[in-house]
C-alpha cells in the first residue's frame, strides 16, 4: 500500500465512518519498501491539491520520517516535487498494522494489501 493511499483511507467502522478524527490511520510495526516509478508531474500537481497535508505530516512523523518541507515549498520547487513523489508513490507499506486513532480498530496489511473487511458487528 502506497503512502499516498494512506493519506486517503479512513476508518470504515459504523461509529467512525465520515468522522474527521478517524483519520489518518496510524501505521504500527510496519515494514516499508521502495519501488521506483516514473515521475508524472501532471499527476503530482493534481494530487497535491487533494492531499491532506496535516494528515501526511502526522503519518510521516508516526513512521519516523518527518517531512522537511512544506506544501508551499513543493509548489515552487521541482526537486521537492520529485522527493514528494518518492515518498508518496515509491514508498509502500508491505507488512504491518493500521490503527484507527478514534476507535483503535486494527487493519492488517499483508503483502502490501490492506484488509478493510469488517466483522459484521462493526458495519
Amino acid at each position: 500500500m502506497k503512502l499516498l493511499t494512506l493519506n486517503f483511507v479512513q476508518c470504515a467502522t459504523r461509529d467512525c465512518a465520515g468522522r474527521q478524527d478517524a483519520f489518518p490511520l496510524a501505521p504500527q510495526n510496519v515494514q516499508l519498501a521502495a519501488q521506483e516509478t516514473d515521475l508524472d508531474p501532471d499527476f503530482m500537481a493534481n494530487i497535491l491539491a487533494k492531499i491532506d497535508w496535516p494528515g501526511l505530516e502526522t503519518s510521516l512523523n508516526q513512521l519516523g520520517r518527518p517531512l522537511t518541507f512544506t506544501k508551499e515549498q513543493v509548489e515552487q520547487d521541482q526537486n521537492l516535487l520529485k522527493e514528494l513523489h518518492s515518498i508518496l508513490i515509491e514508498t509502500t507499506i508491505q507488512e504491518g498494522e493500521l490503527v484507527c486513532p478514534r476507535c483503535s480498530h486494527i487493519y492488517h496489511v499483508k503483502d502490501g494489501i490492506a484488509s478493510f473487511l469488517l466483522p459484521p458487528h462493526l458495519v
Partner: protein
Amino acid sequence: MSRPEQEAPPEIFYNDSEASKYTGSSRIQRIQAEMTLRALDLLSLPPSSYILDIGCGSGLSGEILSEEGHYWVGMDISPSMLQIALERDVDGDILLSDMGQGVPFRPGSFDAAISISAIQWLCNVDSSEHDPKYRLSKFFQTLFSSLKRGGRAVFQFYPANDTQRDTILHAAKVAGFTGGLVIDDPESKKNKKYYMVLVAGGSPGDINLDGVAIDNTMKQKSKKSTESRKQYIMRKKELMKRRGERVAKDSKYTGRKRRTRF
C-alpha cells in the same frame, strides 16, 4: 449462461482456481478491456486522474487505466483475485474490502470511479447479516462522499432482471447521484451491456425560464365575486324548487332591481 452470482459469495466463488481461470482467459481479457475503454470513454477524463476501481479483481481493468495514463486504487473482496493482481505486478494500489461495507476513503478523494462487472454482486444475500438495500445505500453514500464534487462514476454491470436494475438505479439516486443508464447493443441478448453513468453533485446550472409563462389564474377566485346577483337568485330558487318549496316563476324581471319610479 449461468450467473456466478447464483453459485457462491464472491470471496468464495473467486477462489484460486477460478481467479486464475478468469484472468487467464483471453476472451474475458478482451471483453474486460473493451468494457473498460468504453467506461473511460463515458467518463471523458483529463489524463493523470486519480480513479477508484471498485471490484478491481486481478487488475484487468486497472491495466487499461494505467495504459491510459491514470492512477488508480482498486478494491475487491476476493483475496485470490488480489493475489493474482500482485503476481501480475499491477501499477495501482489494491485493498481487500467489501463494497457493501462502504468505501473507506475520506471525502473528495477521487476524480472518478469505475467498476466493471461488479455491482450486481451487491444484490446477493450471502449471509444473515446481508441486506441488499442497506448494502447498496451504504455503498452509494460512501462512494458519493469519496468522489470530488462533480466527479463521475461509471459502472458496467449485469443485472439479473429489471427489478434488480431499478433497485440499483434507485439506490444511486437516493444517495444523491444524478445520471442514468447507457445500454450498448440493446438488441443483442448476448452482447447487451449496461453502463450506469453517475455524477456526484455537479453544478446544476441556472434553471432555464425562457419562454415560460407564469400562470396567475391558479389562484381560485371565490364563488361570491364571480357570481352575478341574478345567478345567485336563480341558484337559490333552483335549490328551493328541488326541496319542494313554492317559488315565484322565473321571468325576465327576475333579479332586477325595482326602480324608485314604480
